[in-house]
């Protein structure tokens, strides 16, 4: 049985990756079919109720600048905002917000339902249909064939998902939902190298059973900035968070019962992330720490459920109860949902090209946790990337790739396809070598135009941006031209601003470089045309503060780009190159780097090996030129 319609793009899984993939493809004009096992769990936040965070906030803003949806929905449904690293420089500041989980999922569902070209369908995809080395569609669990020119798999933790609570094992994609077993087997049968990862989620507690009076309360920032450039208003309701910490008793319970944890009994084989250890791991590995933080976050405006960050574990239920109640403020707490660990299959992402298409099967794309990443933001960014590229491939347009100097997304994708993963991959600002120029605050400046070229950003928005960039340039020039002189009056103003006097004629721009001064302080010096637009002011200020470093990073980025442009011909045979170790030959053959730059980033690459690749790529290229 076959569906009558052939889709341009079929997306398997409507989580954070799948939604962005389907929206991007359909908005670019492709007829797109989006599957989810259950239509009530579209864009569900399976773990914490938050969007953003350090490094992740940058991803969200980039998704937004390319016309993605995550930032807008987050803005629409957020009840708690924090700007992280406020005391540090703007390059490493990131936004984080807590959303109402149910509102988030419904808002995303509404956007998807109303999107032209996008067909949403409940169903379980069991198999990929492959002809030759190309995917031609998918079979659902009833054996019905849906033809598609391209397929994007965004299966999250569902591939061979297995939930552990104590000794209990349950195949599931997420608590209460069935796992995707056949598709996982199908991927292996097709020849993909897969592995197992482990993640987990803490218990949800009933708010009315918690004694907040003994806990430290944290309120939302009073001056939140929205994630999306398009958001004009944020909702008014705010929810606080509460801090507690584990006690000596908590640690004793864990130590005395560690044999009941599947993490320590050997039942769990999947690799867990070092940055996201379960409470068992924290207590056992950092034995000298007497307490670990616990944060309680509301899951929504209309619910009693609270997310107990810091209490993630996979112990049997009777121990979970003891453990929760050993925490100050939680003595009477009722567990509404148990904590659990989940193991699932992922596909080693070195098997993908820079568009997230698999090297083995044309038209098949993978994104999100399927590629060994973790996090809603990482998933959304990959989903968008895969959706855009699938659409471009259908339309026979050039692939869309951002490099490491252009976006956090570029850093992540390059890390995945070049280095592979050996634990769930999460974005950190320290992964981005061009961190000082890849900021949350300039995401639109960096990427809106690219979004416009793809057809995901409207012309008006693109024009507005150009105007803004012009104002920034003008502002910098204006401030550089405007000089102040070391006269008594000026220096007394400077003194009142708590900054040292000047000795020589100084431009306002130079003055702005001082860390203690802000753009607003310049008003006191007068005699020049102020700028109204706060974003423009902020950009000028940041440019001034970082100036030397921005320049250095831009120069480095240029050198980096030159190496990325030095392409390695696709048919390169690495077997006969002298000076390459067997290990390097294997890696080069698998990863098939497209440029010298990418080859350089392969783990274990040596300077001599890279030189050899460079020289032989040149030889190979010229030989093929003479032959043709």
């Amino acid at each position, binding site marked *: 049985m076959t569906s009558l319609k052939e889709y341009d793009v079929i997306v398997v899984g409507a989580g954070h990756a799948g939604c962005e993939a389907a929206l991007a493809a359909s908005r670019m004009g492709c007829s797109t079919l989006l599957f989810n096992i259950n239509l009530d769990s579209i864009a569900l936040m399976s773990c*914490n109720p938050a969007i953003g*965070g*350090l*490094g992740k906030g940058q991803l969200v803003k980039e998704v937004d600048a390319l016309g993605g949806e995550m930032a807008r929905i987050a803005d629409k449904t957020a009840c708690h905002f924090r700007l*992280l*690293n406020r005391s*540090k*420089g703007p*390059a*490493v500041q990131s936004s*984080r917000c807590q959303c109402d989980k149910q509102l988030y999922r419904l808002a995303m569902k509404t956007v998807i339902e109303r999107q032209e070209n996008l067909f949403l369908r409940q169903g379980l995809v069991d198999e990929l249909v492959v002809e030759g080395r190309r995917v031609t569609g998918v079979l659902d669990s009833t054996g019905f064939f849906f033809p598609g020119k391209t397929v994007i798999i965004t299966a999250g933790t569902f591939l061979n998902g297995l939930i552990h609570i104590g000794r209990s094992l349950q195949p599931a994609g997420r608590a209460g939902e069935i796992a995707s077993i056949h598709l996982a087997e199908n991927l292996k049968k097709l020849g993909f190298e897969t592995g197992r990862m482990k993640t987990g989620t803490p218990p949800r507690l009933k708010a009315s059973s918690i004694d907040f009076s003994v806990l430290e309360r944290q309120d939302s920032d009073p001056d939140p900035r929205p994630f999306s450039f398009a958001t004009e208003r944020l909702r008014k309701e705010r929810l606080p968070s509460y801090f507690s910490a584990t006690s000596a008793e908590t640690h004793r319970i864990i130590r005395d019962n560690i044999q009941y944890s599947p993490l320590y009994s050997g039942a769990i084989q999947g690799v867990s*992330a*070092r*940055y*996201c*250890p379960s409470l068992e791991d*924290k207590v056992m*590995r*950092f034995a000298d720490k007497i307490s*670990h933080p616990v*944060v309680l976050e509301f899951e929504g405006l209309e619910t009693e459920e609270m997310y107990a*960050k*810091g209490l*993630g574990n996979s112990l049997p239920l009777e121990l979970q109860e003891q453990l929760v109640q050993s925490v100050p403020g939680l003595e009477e707490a009722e567990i509404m949902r148990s904590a659990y660990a989940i193991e699932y299959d992922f596909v080693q992402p070195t098997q993908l090209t820079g568009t997230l298409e698999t090297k083995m099967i044309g038209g098949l794309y993978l994104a999100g946790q399927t590629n060994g990443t973790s996090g809603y933001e990482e998933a959304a960014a990959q989903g968008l990337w895969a959706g855009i590229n699938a659409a471009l491939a259908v339309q026979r347009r050039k692939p869309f790739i951002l490099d490491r100097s252009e976006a956090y997304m570029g850093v992540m994708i390059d890390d995945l396809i070049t280095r592979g993963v050996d634990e769930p991959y999460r974005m*950190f*600002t*320290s*992964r981005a*070598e061009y*961190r*000082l120029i890849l900021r949350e605050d300039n995401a639109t400046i960096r990427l809106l135009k690219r979004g416009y070229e793809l057809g995901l950003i409207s012309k008006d928005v693109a024009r507005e941006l150009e105007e803004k960039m012009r104002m920034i340039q003008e502002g910098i020039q204006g401030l550089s031209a405007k000089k102040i002189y070391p006269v008594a009056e000026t220096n007394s103003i400077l003194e009142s601003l708590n900054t040292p006097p000047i000795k020589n004629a100084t431009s306002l721009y130079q003055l702005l470089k001082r*860390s203690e001064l802000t753009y607003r302080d310049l008003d006191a010096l007068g005699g020049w045309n102020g700028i109204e637009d706060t974003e423009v002011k902020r950009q000028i200020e940041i440019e001034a*503060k*970082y100036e030397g*470093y921005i320049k250095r990073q831009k120069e*480095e980025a240029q*050198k*980096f780009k*030159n*190496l990325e442009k*030095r392409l390695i011909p696709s048919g390169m045979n690495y077997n006969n*190159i*002298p*000076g390459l170790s067997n290990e390097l030959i294997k890696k080069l053959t698998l990863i098939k780097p497209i440029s*010298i*730059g990418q080859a*350089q*980033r392969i*783990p274990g690459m040596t*300077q*001599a090996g*890279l*030189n*050899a690749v*460079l*020289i032989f790529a*040149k*030889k190979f290229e*010229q*030989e093929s030129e003479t032959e043709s």
Partner: protein
Amino acid sequence: MCKIHTIVQEDTIAAIATPVTGAAGGIGVIRVSGADSEGICRTLFRPRFKVEKFEDRRLYFGDVCSFDKGHILDEVLIALMKAPHSYTGEDVLEIHCHGNPLLLESVLREVFKAGARPAEPGEFTKRAFMNNRMDLTQAEAVAELISARTEQGAQNAVYGLQGILTDEIRKMHSSLVDVAALIETSIDFSEDENVNMPPLDQTVTVLDEIVCRIEEMVLSYETGKIYRDGISVVITGSTNVGKSSLLNRLTGQQRAIVADIPGTTRDFIDAEIAIRGLPVRFTDTAGIRNSGDFLEKESVLYAWEKAGQADLVLILIDVHRGISDCDTQIIKRHENKKRLVVANKIDLPHHFSSEDLKRAGLETEPLFISCKTNTGIDSLKEEIYKYAVAGKSRSEQGFVVNLRHKHALEKTAEAISKAGHQLAENSMPETAAYEIREAIYFLETITGETADSEILDRIFLNFCIGK
């Protein structure tokens, strides 16, 4: 996070193109290749006659000056060869200086200040290949050459950065990775994950210590130079005490003609060997005696002069013959010099006493050897080595031998100082992190090892992170 290493083609590179070990040649050439070549030429070269435009492949006469102050360093000839008609296929500048290795180095240093970076081993050849200046069939040869040169460089580095020094660079590297991990933890995890952190300005002491140590290492460069340039040792003594035999023994070759006829060696014979990696250049001189032969007289005078220029003089005496007046004269003549008295022919009966030695002005026992039976030759080599490195501080700890390494160390210290300053002021940690990465990168250009994911590993090892 990875940092681009020196494979980047667009950089302008420079190196001394003529051999630097061995006797100082008449002329030394510094070669510069890359887009900045002409700019560097304009910055450092002051032509004797006004030049409007440097013509391609033409020699110009003038002075090469320092980058900052414009002091004249040397009178030189320069030539600019424009791309693609040059060895590397890029713009190439050649500076023909006088051959003194110290001078060449100081000029090279100015070239670095003016914007070039030190060339990697084999890099000129690689560029020539990449720019179609070489036949395709030479790809294998070029790849092998580069890999061999890299290896040789590594071996040289082992000589120079022996033992403790290599360890020390690794230790510094490790401390810097720790500092980087600390800063990155404060940036990436302190707020989101509620990790308890020591204050960042605590690292300032660590950084200051590293900078001090680097400064010492950079100073040791002068000492370490002997590893690269070597030392010269003149063998002198009366006629027929076995100077040529000794040279042959030391070098393990028949370099000098040996005969029992006094005055066989009239010319100066040079031979170079390595003792524990230290290049030692021996000069065998004519035996000294009062002779009527004009040529020999000239060469004897010359022998005095040669011995005067040497870093170390080996005075050879003959135990069988005893100490002659001539020997005494020679020993006294080299009183204020670095000298080592070596008594040869111990396989034969001895004919001298310690009184004879005292009379000749010798306080200590000579070193006894026999060239015939090879006795004592190894101890002699050991003695020569000790002489060479004596007084050069940290002789047991190795030296920075290589201008490239020195350059890298200076860059490392510069970056660390900036970071330390920023951390002390508690200003933005991300710029300090940037400087520390820069410092790590420069250290890695010395050891050839990369830190890469090491920083993240260190974070997860040292801090309990996670929700």
